[in-house]
């Protein structure tokens, strides 16, 4: 191979990271995830990055190779980053050229082709090699490992032309290889050294259930089988076991395990044990050289599962970007097997280690169910599940949090729904056991039976199709997880993994569109639709409101709001009710009102025959059943008493709920009411991706329920705790702590910055709770708390946008604006 390029010395001027050269050895999952994480850091983007990959491909999801083998996925579906991605991020990718030497003195790496590249920082991510037993016959044609695309190609070729396969190794990888080959039509035998399968992840009972199930699916097992030799003269013909048994084969797949690929690091004189030794900061014994992934050893542990690799990548990227505080710590891990219809979960201890430990077991042989949990000192330390793994993530979470589970001990093994005493916990839902009349979508009144029936009869395979046909999850979307669960339950493996595009008019997703609006200066909906090749020239009812919001947010004062792209509520500034009348909720700042305001509300209710007056959950008063034609006059009367729009109809700031605080309450620590009023005066009128609710509680008793709001403030003696991302709706979510500050001014500044970040980066119709769940609270903290300059910039952008947003829409309409919205057309004459 002959790749030539110039080693440029055109260092950019500026900070210490500018122009630093990072060389990555290994184009696999751990190395490239580290690069992806690095690009998220401002300082990380300044690196000049070269990536070496020994394989001739771009980087792909190695875990999914078994799905490719089994025919569940195509090769191009497991590609993680395309060549365009490397180019777009200015990364030089060298594929098919393995690095052969690291020179730590000269700080260079040299590849097979002779290519020599200098580095300032080096990242070793060479992964692992398949373990090979020291037996004769390994070099024969027809023998392969199960490690990369080339191996899968060999196996698929054999499946096309040959009949019999033997897989050596009954662990995760061996079983998936055996199942894949079986799916491809080969007759498959599996040889395993130990008495039961997956003995490192499963106890004997679960291992036996697994063997029984796979045996029924036609895989022959040779357990307690030590391979002595691979037979054959020109080509593999079979496997000879030490106990005299022999198994004929045209293809032999070795999957007995992996070992860290340490050759390069060893030759370079780095400290090595089983793997390349790294510290908590992912540095090797040479501080300019980092290592991540299956090639490393951290505190005596080596890695074969993906979850800790992601944690390593994140910490390593932060270190590279200059954050010395980012450290890697390994957490409890879980395993699952990718064989369709065989559900296995395992985490932590497989069995009691001594008499102080307790095992609780549930076994139902007829249904093929097995569950075991292991307890130590009242805490969960292990779980093995077979047949029903829905509670796996819950057990793992209990193990990681280390919380005391004594109180739910008797119920623990039955799973979350039972232990919590609640039905319908989404992670633990058993759809087959759910009655058909169970209501799934509360908004649209759709039951399980209706959804399952539609999926089966109309052969639906995607969430959007189920939404289109049944309306389930088409409104508030909170039941999306359950609908997806039902889809998987009813349609099984046929479910399409579809990309979440903004709507069906485009293939682009929300983030791409938001970025382009700002980066390419797109200032009208037509410009956005043209730039992305919209399928419908005018868009649809989904994308029009989203684009209108994105443009309004990106270009305050410039973009002209398009009322024709607003949902009726936001167009007429009132909430449409099911009978076509409207509701009117005036703002009550921080929940405060006055006798004059109350009199005005009462007078309006009398004058316009408003049938229902209700106190809302947001400490305001709702007038329900107002006729559309009356709206401007109602607003005019309310306005005379100083009442303005409460935006209860909008994707906008709704309420700031408060308690009475130190002014009246004997427990109050700060003046929560007046702080609430200040927050509301600052934030009202702002359009947001979805509705936003705030609250301020005067003490940790939290009477204003601040911990289930989009942003809450809990006053304490020392100042103010700001918490974010809560939700009290269908899926209750408690807030994450953002920061504790000392003064009201800081509360206001952080609130502005948080709201602006949400305004700029969340997807349209995404509440703060799912947004934070998606981007992570650490990211929000980094932007709003840890970066003071960034916070001030967000704060300034929010206040700038408010200059154009804080107009009372009711007063404008009471004066006659948009009059056509509120009156019917007369019939003039018969013609």
């Amino acid at each position, binding site marked *: 191979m002959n790749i030539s390029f110039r080693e440029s010395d055109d260092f950019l001027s500026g900070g210490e990271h500018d122009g630093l050269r990072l060389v990555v050895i290994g184009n696999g999952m751990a190395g490239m995830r580290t690069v992806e994480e690095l690009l998220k850091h401002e300082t990380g983007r300044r690196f000049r990055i070269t990536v070496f990959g020994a394989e001739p491909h771009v980087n792909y999801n190695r875990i999914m190779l078994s799905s490719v083998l089994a025919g569940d996925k195509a090769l191009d579906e497991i590609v993680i980053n395309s060549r365009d991605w490397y180019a777009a991020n200015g990364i030089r990718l060298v594929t098919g050229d393995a690095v052969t030497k690291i020179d730590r003195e000269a700080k260079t790496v040299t590849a097979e082709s002779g290519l020599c590249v200098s580095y300032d920082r080096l990242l070793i991510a060479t992964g692992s090699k398949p373990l090979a037993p020291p037996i004769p016959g390994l070099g024969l044609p027809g023998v392969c490992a199960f490690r990369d695309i080339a191996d899968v190609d060999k196996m698929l070729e054999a499946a096309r032309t040959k009949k019999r396969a033997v897989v050596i190794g009954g662990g995760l990888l061996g079983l998936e290889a055996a199942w894949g080959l079986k799916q491809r039509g080969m007759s498959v035998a599996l040889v395993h050294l130990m008495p039961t399968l997956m003995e490192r992840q499963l106890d004997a009972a679960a291992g036996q259930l697994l063997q029984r199930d796979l045996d029924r699916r036609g895989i022959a097992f040779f357990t307690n089988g030590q391979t002595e030799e691979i037979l054959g003269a020109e080509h593999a013909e079979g496997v000879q076991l030490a106990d005299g048994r022999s198994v004929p084969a045209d293809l032999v797949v070795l999957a007995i395990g992996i070992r860290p690929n340490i050759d390069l690091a060893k030759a370079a004189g780095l400290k090595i044990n089983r793997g390349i030794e790294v510290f908590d900061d992912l540095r090797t014994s040479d501080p300019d050289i980092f290592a991540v992934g299956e090639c490393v050893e951290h505190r005596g542990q080596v890695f074969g599962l993906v979850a800790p690799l992601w944690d390593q990548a994140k910490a390593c990227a932060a270190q590279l970007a200059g954050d010395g505080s980012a450290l890697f710590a390994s957490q409890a891990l879980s395993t699952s097997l990718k064989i369709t219809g065989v559900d296995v979960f395992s985490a932590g201890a497989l069995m009691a280690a001594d008499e102080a430990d307790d095992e609780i077991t549930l076994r139902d042989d007829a249904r093929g169910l097995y569950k075991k949990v292991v307890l130590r000192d009242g805490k969960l330390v292990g779980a093995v599940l077979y047949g029903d793994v829905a509670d796996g993530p819950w057990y793992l979470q209990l193990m990681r949090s280390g919380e005391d589970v004594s109180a739910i001990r008797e119920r623990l093994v039955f799973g979350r729904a039972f232990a919590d005493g609640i039905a319908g916990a989404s992670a633990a839902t058993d759809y087959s056991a759910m009655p058909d009349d169970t209501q799934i979508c509360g908004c649209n009144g759709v039951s399980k039976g209706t959804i399952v029936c539609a999926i089966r009869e*109309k052969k639906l395979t995607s969430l959007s199709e189920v939404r289109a046909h049944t309306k389930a999850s088409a409104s508030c979307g909170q039941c999306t997880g359950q609908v997806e669960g039902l889809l998987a339950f009813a349609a099984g493996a046929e479910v399409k993994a579809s990309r979440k595009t903004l709507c069906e008019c485009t293939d682009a997703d929300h983030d791409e569109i938001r970025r382009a609006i700002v980066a390419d200066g797109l200032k009208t909906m037509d410009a956005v639709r043209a730039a992305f090749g919209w399928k419908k020239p005018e868009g*649809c*009812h989904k994308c*029009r409101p989203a684009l209108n919001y994105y443009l309004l947010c990106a270009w305050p004062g410039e973009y002209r709001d398009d009322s024709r792209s607003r949902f009726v509520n936001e167009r007429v500034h009132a909430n449409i009710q099911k009978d*076509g009348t409207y509701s009117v909720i005036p703002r009550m700042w921080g929940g405060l009102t006055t006798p004059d305001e109350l009199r005005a509300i009462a007078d309006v209710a009398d004058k316009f025959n408003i049938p229902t007056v209700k106190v809302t959950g947001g400490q305001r008063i709702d007038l329900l059943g107002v006729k559309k034609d009356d709206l401007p006059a109602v607003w005019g009367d309310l306005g005379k008493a100083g009442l303005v729009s409460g935006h209860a109809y909008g994707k906008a700031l709704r309420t700031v709920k408060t308690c009475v605080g130190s002014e009246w309450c004997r427990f109050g620590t700060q003046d929560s009411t007046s702080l609430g009023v200040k927050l509301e005066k600052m934030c009202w009128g702002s359009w947001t991706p979805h509705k936003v609710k705030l609250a301020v509680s005067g003490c940790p008793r939290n009477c204003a329920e601040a911990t289930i709001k989009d942003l809450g403030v809990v006053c304490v003696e020392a100042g103010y705790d700001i918490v974010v991302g809560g939700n009290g709706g269908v899926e209750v979510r408690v807030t994450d702590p953002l920061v504790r500050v000392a003064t009201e001014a800081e509360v206001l500044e952080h609130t502005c910055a948080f709201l602006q970040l949400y305004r700029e980066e969340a997807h349209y119709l995404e509440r703060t709770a799912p947004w934070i769940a998606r981007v992570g609270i650490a990211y929000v903290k980094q932007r709003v708390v840890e970066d003071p300059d960034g916070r001030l910039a967000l704060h300034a952008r929010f206040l700038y946008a408010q200059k154009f947003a804080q107009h009372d829409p009711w007063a404008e309409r009471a004066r006659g604006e948009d009059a*056509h919205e509120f009156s*019917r057309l007369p*019939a003039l004459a018969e*013609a």
Partner: protein
Amino acid sequence: MDILWKNIGPLANIPMCGARRLCFGHGGRPIAVFRTAKDELFALIDECPHRQGPLSEGIIAGDAVTCPLHNWTIDLKDGVALAPDEGSTQALPVRVVNGEVHVGLPHAESVAA
């Protein structure tokens, strides 16, 4: 068919890409007149076939309107719901004469407001 044409006033009363509801009904039911971005006019009984939502309040894109209550999308040309929803609302003829909009009511059923 014997059609009774009702003059509902100047075209300018109906916003582009918008709709108005008439203050007289047809067979006791409300009527909506829509004006698309391409400046074409359509009239429908202002009731979504699903739960009788006011179509005149929906978002109009192309030749279709989406009901504000539950997001059914109705073809303005014939009042038929787009698949996979099933159902329809009655479409009425509409014309512009000297800059004024006339909606046609089938005579036998017409009801003056």
